[in-house]
């Protein structure tokens, strides 16, 4: 007993003196989870990307605002030679964190590594690159197999690794039986960084300590009108594990920024605190309901449209998302303004529940559907109905809506539940069925054995190549991206054209056309695009840069400076 | 006490042997064989009360359980009315058990606490499909009355915990008797009861024998009880028969040193004749002689270190029906005679 008391007393006395100097000018960021790995080739999760994007830099990056690609490690736009199908990129004289120069050989090495190992998540961007060569130390030439719009948009945004660090590792991996597996299992203690920060120490599960990279090219540089720093000495990523702990830490000032979405419930708690600023930014995300067009009942366009009419996206956004989101009418989210289709689909007008049922009823009646008891009485009032009958007189069988489980995404699971209720209003017996993510993908992508599902992509690339990938006929096979089995020759033609079109304006036009087709045929019903709500303290640091994807971005961390420090000061 | 009619044995044990494998923990003491019974041959005559006397662990209870088929003998055979019941199973076992029943030692344990007295007593009728419900009830009531639980209606609908020990033991007798068996094994029926109840139970057993001519095999540790009830007795020690014969003969003229030791040790209350003391026990005990010798060798004051250690004596008749298993029966010392009346030992 006394032992217990002793421990409690010991523990109750607050730990060591508070006045410490070490964290002067060090930004403290709260994260929910630690990076899974600092091996660029393995890490696919958001938490790893938070850190890795500060180490491995790209040739071009999107700038805040219009999201246009601007040169980063490159200087000037890539030079395209249509004759040879080649791009030439000039490099900035930059240095790695160990002081060695960043050269064209690093770029070549990275590209070849991806091609050699077929590194997942990168290879598809490099598979159409025929050759990569260094023209001198500061110029790279890429030769393509075919013109592809995603080259400039995505391939050139590949993070680049240091050749001297990775070359021996690659050699070792190639010598093993399973080179890719070996590559993914490499763990680097000190990844060489060409970015603003470099790893100092990492205590797994607790914190990562990053310090300013003295060799970062951006120091003192003003890029796109933005004075780059970094103006802070370092960053500590603190792992909290639960959002309640992180929010509490933010309130107490133990962290300056919580790099994650703030759940609506906490907003009221932090709203009254003048030291905390809340940012709302759009995401490049798509949350949608998908239909199986390969089999009844959703092979029928009228039924899909009726369902689209019944789904009250506004309700989902205000209630389920607590207003932290926007209704989505077309595939490309509004944040990605360039490719966004600004045209509201007929079912996305503001309608009351009754009106929605009424309209769905009309659509179905027109298509020849009947009921045992109709959903509207003769006076046009909604009534409980039963048993939707197809034009051929057969019953629409009970169907299931697959959703991710609540632990993975409670909002989608909840949306599924609501949709189930709404469909019931016109006599469609639907049951939302939450399913482990893998199992659900297996059913949807692997076996095409489903009626409808609710899914989402939280971090879509800004280049809309995926719009075509989701619906072209050639992707409709097993495990292909065309999950709903949409098939339209006109769409296929548009998609093919778009892939080869390098002119942005023309390409945009094609992408918008494709989106219109999807709006018309409803293979997917876009539901909502959540807003990213983030909170940061303004008492120690200022200068957050809002952009799509939130304030936690490379620009912010390069520009952030201690409160009170003159903005013009350039080191 | 009238002598039971001499007749053919109704039940016979021939060379019965039984071993147990002792259950030890892993390692020590496990897997050793313990002999519970060795070469036991006995005859029980119709209508007699036969006493099986011995200390705890002597194998007398095992013997009783073997007789009712609760245990299987490893050697030897069991004959009921001349018919061998070597492998008792299924129907033959059931038929056998209609003839051979048992009363257990502990009346607090031998009745299912969850069943009413009626259900417990009627069970043999149910399992043997005798009569319908009404007939069974009548039969149960009659039997309860016969064992002195009267009026039977008062007892039939109670549960065991509402009865005293003596009443429970009567219920157990009623259950055993309801099918009218030919043989009844009574395994220490009174050892858990107070004296006044045990006398009641003895009386019921005597009455049963008288009325139904049932053969009763009384298993007991008390020579006094055996003397009171039994026509013939057998003394058993460590699974072997030491001495058997008419009860009076064995108790008044014991010939086996073990029997003599038992009689020495039994309190002689109320016995106002001359007291003999045989003094056949040796103290301290000798080391074991191995399995070959006499079972009583370790404690026997008369034993010859040579012969008794090596060779187990056979049961040999002394007089008609009085058999003793000892090499030195004839050399037994004459008992010393004590005071006239052993009351208040400290005198």
């Amino acid at each position, binding site marked *: 007993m006394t032992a217990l008391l002793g421990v409690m007393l010991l523990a109750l006395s607050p730990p060591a003196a508070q006045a410490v100097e070490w964290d002067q000018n060090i930004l403290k960021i709260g994260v929910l989870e630690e990076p899974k790995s600092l091996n660029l080739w393995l890490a696919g999760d958001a938490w790893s990307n938070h850190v890795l994007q500060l180490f491995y830099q790209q040739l071009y990056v999107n700038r805040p605002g219009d999201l246009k690609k601007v040169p980063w490690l490159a200087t000037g736009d890539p030079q395209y030679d249509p004759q040879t199908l080649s791009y030439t990129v000039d490099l900035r004289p930059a240095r790695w964190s160990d002081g060695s120069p960043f050269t064209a050989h690093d770029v070549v090495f990275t590209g070849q590594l991806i091609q050699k190992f077929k590194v997942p998540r990168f290879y598809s961007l490099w598979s159409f690159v025929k050759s990569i060569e260094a023209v001198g130390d500061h110029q790279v030439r890429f030769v393509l197999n075919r013109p592809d719009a995603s080259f400039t948009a995505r391939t050139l945004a590949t993070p680049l690794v240091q050749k001297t660090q990775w070359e021996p590792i690659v050699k070792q991996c190639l010598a093993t039986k399973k080179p890719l597996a070996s590559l993914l299992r490499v763990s680097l203690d000190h990844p060489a960084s060409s970015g603003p920060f470099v790893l100092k120490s990492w205590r797994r599960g607790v914190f990562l300590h990053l310090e300013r990279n003295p060799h970062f090219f951006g120091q003192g540089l003003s890029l796109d009108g933005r004075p780059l720093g970094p103006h802070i000495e370092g960053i500590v990523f603190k792992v909290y594990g639960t959002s309640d702990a992180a929010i509490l830490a933010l309130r107490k000032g133990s962290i300056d920024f919580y790099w994650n979405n703030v759940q609506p419930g906490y907003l009221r708690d932090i709203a009254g605190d003048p030291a905390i600023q809340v940012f709302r930014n759009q995401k490049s995300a798509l949350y949608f309901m998908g239909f199986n067009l390969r089999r009844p009942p959703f092979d029928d366009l009228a039924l899909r449209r009726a369902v689209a009419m019944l789904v009250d996206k506004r309700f989902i956004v205000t209630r389920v998302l607590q207003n932290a989101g926007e209704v989505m009418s077309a595939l490309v989210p509004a944040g990605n303004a360039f490719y966004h289709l600004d045209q509201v689909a007929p079912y996305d007008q503001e309608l009351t529940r009754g009106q929605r049922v009424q309209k769905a009823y009309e659509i179905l009646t027109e298509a020849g559907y009947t009921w045992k008891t109709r959903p509207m009485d003769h006076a046009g009032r909604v009534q409980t109905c039963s048993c939707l009958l197809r034009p051929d007189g057969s019953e629409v069988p009970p169907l299931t809506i697959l959703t991710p489980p609540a632990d993975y995404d409670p909002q989608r699971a909840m949306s599924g539940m609501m949709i189930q209720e709404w469909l019931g209003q016109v006599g469609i017996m639907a049951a939302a069925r939450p399913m482990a993510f893998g199992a659900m993908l297996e059913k949807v992508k692997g076996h095409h054995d489903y009626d409808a599902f609710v899914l989402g992509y939280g971090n879509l690339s800004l280049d809309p190549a995926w719009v075509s990938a989701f619906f072209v006929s050639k992707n409709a096979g097993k495990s292909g991206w065309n999950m709903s089995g949409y098939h339209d020759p006109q769409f296929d033609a548009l998609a093919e054209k778009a892939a080869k079109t390098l002119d942005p304006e023309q390409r945009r036009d094609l992408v918008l056309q494709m989106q219109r087709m999807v709006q018309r045929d409803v293979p997917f019903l876009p539901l909502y695009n959540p807003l990213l709500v983030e909170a940061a303290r303004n008492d120690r640091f200022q200068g957050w840069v809002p952009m799509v994807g939130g304030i936690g971005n490379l620009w912010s961390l390069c520009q952030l400076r201690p409160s009170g420090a003159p903005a013009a000061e350039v080191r | 006490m009238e002598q039971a009619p001499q007749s053919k044995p109704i039940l016979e044990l021939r060379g019965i042997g039984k071993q147990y494998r002792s259950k030890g923990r892993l390692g020590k003491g496990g897997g050793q064989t313990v002999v519970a019974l060795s070469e036991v041959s006995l005859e029980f005559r119709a209508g007699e009360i036969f006493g099986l006397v011995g200390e705890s662990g002597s194998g007398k209870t095992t013997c009783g359980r073997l007789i009712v088929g609760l245990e299987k003998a490893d050697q030897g055979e069991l004959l009921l009315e001349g018919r061998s019941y070597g492998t008792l199973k299924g129907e033959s076992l059931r038929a056998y058990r209609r003839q051979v029943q048992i009363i257990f030692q502990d009346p607090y344990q031998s009745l299912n606490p969850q069943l009413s007295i009626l259900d417990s007593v009627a069970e043999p009728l149910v399992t043997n499909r005798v009569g319908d419900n009404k007939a069974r009830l009548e039969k149960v009531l009659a039997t309860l009355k016969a064992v002195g639980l009267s009026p039977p209606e008062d007892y039939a609908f109670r549960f065991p915990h509402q009865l005293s020990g003596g*009443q429970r033991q009567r219920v157990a007798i009623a259950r055993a008797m309801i099918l009218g068996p030919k043989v009844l094994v009574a395994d220490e029926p009174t050892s858990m009861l107070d*004296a*006044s109840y045990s006398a009641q139970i003895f009386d019921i057993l005597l009455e049963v024998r008288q009325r139904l001519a049932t053969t009763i095999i009384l298993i007991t540790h008390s020579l006094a009880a055996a003397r009171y009830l039994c026509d013939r007795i057998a003394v058993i020690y460590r699974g072997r028969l030491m001495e058997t014969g008419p009860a009076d003969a064995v108790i008044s003229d014991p010939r086996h040193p073990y029997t003599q030791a038992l009689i020495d040790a*039994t309190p*002689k209350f109320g016995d106002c*004749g001359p007291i003999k003391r045989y003094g056949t026990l040796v103290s301290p005990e000798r080391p074991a002689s191995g399995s070959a010798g006499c079972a009583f060798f370790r404690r026997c004051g008369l034993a010859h270190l040579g012969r008794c250690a090596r060779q187990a004596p056979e049961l040999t008749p002394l007089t008609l029906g009085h058999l003793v298993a000892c090499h030195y029966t004839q050399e037994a010392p004459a008992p010393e005679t004590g005071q006239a009346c052993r009351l208040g030992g400290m005198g």
Partner: protein
Amino acid sequence: MALLEVENLSIGYRTKRGVLQAVDNVSFSVEAGRSLGLVGESGCGKTTIGMALMGLLPRNGRVTAGAMRLMGRDMLGLSREQWRGLRWKEIAMIFQAAMNALNPVQRVGQQIAEAILTHNPGLSRGEAHSQVEGLYQLVGLSLERLRDYPHQYSGGMKQRAVIAMALACNPKIIVADEPTTALDVIVQDQILQETKALQKEFNIGIIFISHDISIVAEVCHHIAIMYAGQMVETGTTDEVFREAKHPYTRALLGSFPALGGERRPLRPIPGEPPLLIGQLAGCRFCDRCPEHGHACKLDPPQWRRFSDTHFALCDHCD
């Protein structure tokens, strides 16, 4: 002066159904070197008396009337501490060993030494230990057994150890509660003989509690027969056995088969003893009495004297 005097002792237990009068108006005395046998069937109150003598009545039990005196000293008024000093030093107990009187997780030798040390705080462990060795020799246990645990003992050995423990502090009185009940006859006989010898040697007063009249007959000088919480007859062993006066005593004697002599039919006592809750007027045995029927139901019977030592609680016996 008698070593122990018990006068008009009454003990009741509180139960849900009311007060159970387990012992009612019991008197007896024991002198040094003499033994008294308390005999009766289960539930007659004999164990309760034993426990009361040790001051160990269960929580719901209470002495309601009477007096207990040890060498003239009143025991009922003792404080808890005084009781503690009295126990074992003056009055010890032999328990029935089969009922786990020994702590299973302590070495037997240590349990005996513990008793010695408690009452002789000045003693060193070594001295206590050598005393225990002496006790072991006294009761015929081998010294190797000192460090064994109870489960390694046979029944007879446990009983001997319990006797050794009772002798540990040279008590003046020993209460032996059914000390041989679970033992085989031969061992029982040995233990009884040894008890007698020890009693003689140390001049101890013994109260021997048993349900088995034949054992008491072996050991005791005096006998008190108990029935339903009352003492119904008392006298020297000889008197009680030869000239039993109370019908219950006679019935009890008649229900034990004897080993020698003539085979006589047993006389079972019919019926059941009464429940001891509530008012019990008249003779408690009369419902079962084979001799005087229901005549004495109303009036409480009076003690009748037959000799200086022989009394019976019956109005009709002669």
